[in-house]
């Protein structure tokens, strides 16, 4: 059958129908994905959102799920690894106790700041507060 205008037109029509179905399935898949990620995110006790990061990692805007106890530092073995020069290998610990979050500095070289103020040893952190480890700033969120 030669490729007449008629055949081309018919292909466009079939393409339209197929595209609608593809869109339908992709929307549904997207919904499922977002629901799944919602579930995993909601299970986190809290989240640290990267506010400032001079290097490529961690990415600005990246969300890090928190456990009950989180070791933060430059070392890769930390729960939250911050590969910044200004951060110590084992810099601080962020932990939750009785529904409250506490940050403890582990004797880091440059110290740990909460909302711009260097902490003594342990400090209570609330949601919305900003924690600075080296040159990286992290905000605590629910």
């Amino acid at each position, binding site marked *: 059958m030669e490729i*007449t205008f*008629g*055949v081309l*037109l*018919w292909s466009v029509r079939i393409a339209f129908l197929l595209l609608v179905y593809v869109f339908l399935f992709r929307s549904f898949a997207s919904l499922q994905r977002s629901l799944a990620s919602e579930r995993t995110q909601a299970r986190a006790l809290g989240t640290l959102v990267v506010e400032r990061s001079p290097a490529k990692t961690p990415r600005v805007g990246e969300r890090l799920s928190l456990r009950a106890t989180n070791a933060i530092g430059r070392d890769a073995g930390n729960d939250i690894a911050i590969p910044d020069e200004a951060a110590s290998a084992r810099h601080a610990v962020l932990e939750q106790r009785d529904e409250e979050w506490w940050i403890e500095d582990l004797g880091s070289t440059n110290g740990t700041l909460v909302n711009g103020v260097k902490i003594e040893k342990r400090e209570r952190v609330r949601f919305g507060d900003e924690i600075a480890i080296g040159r990286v700033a992290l905000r605590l969120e629910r």
Partner: protein
Amino acid sequence: MTRSIGENIRSVTFVLALAFLISSIGVGYWTLVASDELGSDPFNPRLVSAIRDRPRGTIVDSAGGVLAESVKATDGYKRVYKDRTLSQVVGYASFKYGTAGVEAAYAESLVGQDPADPVATWRARYLNERESPGAVVLAIDPKVQKAAADALGGRRGAIIALDPRTGAILASVSFPNYDASLIADPTTEDTAWDQVSKNVDKPLIDRARLGVYAPGSTFKLVTGATALEVGVNPDTKVRVDDPWQADPSWGSYFVRSSSKAHGDYTMADGYRLSENIYFAKIGLQIGGAKLAEYAQRFGIGSAPKCDIAAAKGQLSNTGSLDRPTLIADTSYGQGELLVSPLQMALVAAAIGRGGVMPTPHYATEVRDAAGNTIRTVAPGAAGQVIRPDTAAKFTTYLVGAVEGPGAFAFGARINGVHVAGKTGTAENPAGPPHGWFVGFAPAEAPTVAVAVIVENSGQGGLDAAPLGGRVMQTALGK
């Protein structure tokens, strides 16, 4: 304790999903299930849309003569019909008033979407190709048609002739008729339709296949054939005294003989002289149940499986013959009987064909634009109604009814050919009786069967018989 809003929302969502499912099923019904039925509804504009934009297929008779074609008009195509006598068979195709007749029954084939040719159907439907679709060939023989039209002349009624061997309909006339071209032409359609649909004589109705009447004495074909089949001895003499009733419980109802007969009748006599009382007695002898059974086998009370819709008629109001007076009345062709000429022609054809009932059809084949045959219309026989020996024996009586001494159907005689037939004069409460004739020829191996009805004729069957004879004569080529 209140349910949480969340639970309620879930319930509502479930109900909504169910409702969507039901809606889908509803939509599915109309798009998939009812699709064919609506698609062939004569008022569906899609079916007729091809008329305007592209030429519709032609309808031709058996000799190739054009009966209906699309001609180019100022704004597209319009349909033109050549033979007014076939107006109810060929029908019309109007954008506004839908389709009828062959134009309706073969609508898909005429727009190039015959199911037997799926590639062409797909091209016509999806690619919008404007090629000229092919043709529908009818079995109508122009010579026989003309003879039938001339024979009926200007009298109200119908003549239908078919070939008992195949069921192909050779001629069909119904008067009064109308000019279908006027209905198909958009400039004249409204006035023409108004005129035609309001005409009290109902020219739109094809009396040959849709008109139902009391068969009168032609029904004796059924009675007699049934009698022979169930073993009644045709040579037994039956006493006939006019008027007659079986017992006083019949009250004021009597069977009356048309010739005020008194005598002993055999079956041969009964047919030759069309004796009502003979058949009434025979009918009672057969019994209501058996008579009803064989009437049904002969197609009385059910619509023949024709390619264009045909009438159902009835055996009786209830469908069975339960009262003795009804049995008697029905046996000689009155009672509550209603039959169409097509049904009677089929009865005659079955008898002539050794008891095999043919399936009628108007068209013989469908062709594509290049002239190749896409499909042939050749439905097989409908079944064996009576035994061949019964049919053969019975035919002799029918020949006697035409050729015997004093035969009522003498008008149907043809030189050099044995004609089998029967006249009928059907009483009609609304006026003068209708005249019937059914027959077939040559009697030994018929190639044509005919049914004639002349409404409100003066002489009843005597008027109808010669018409039948002329039609059969032309069909036989004599």
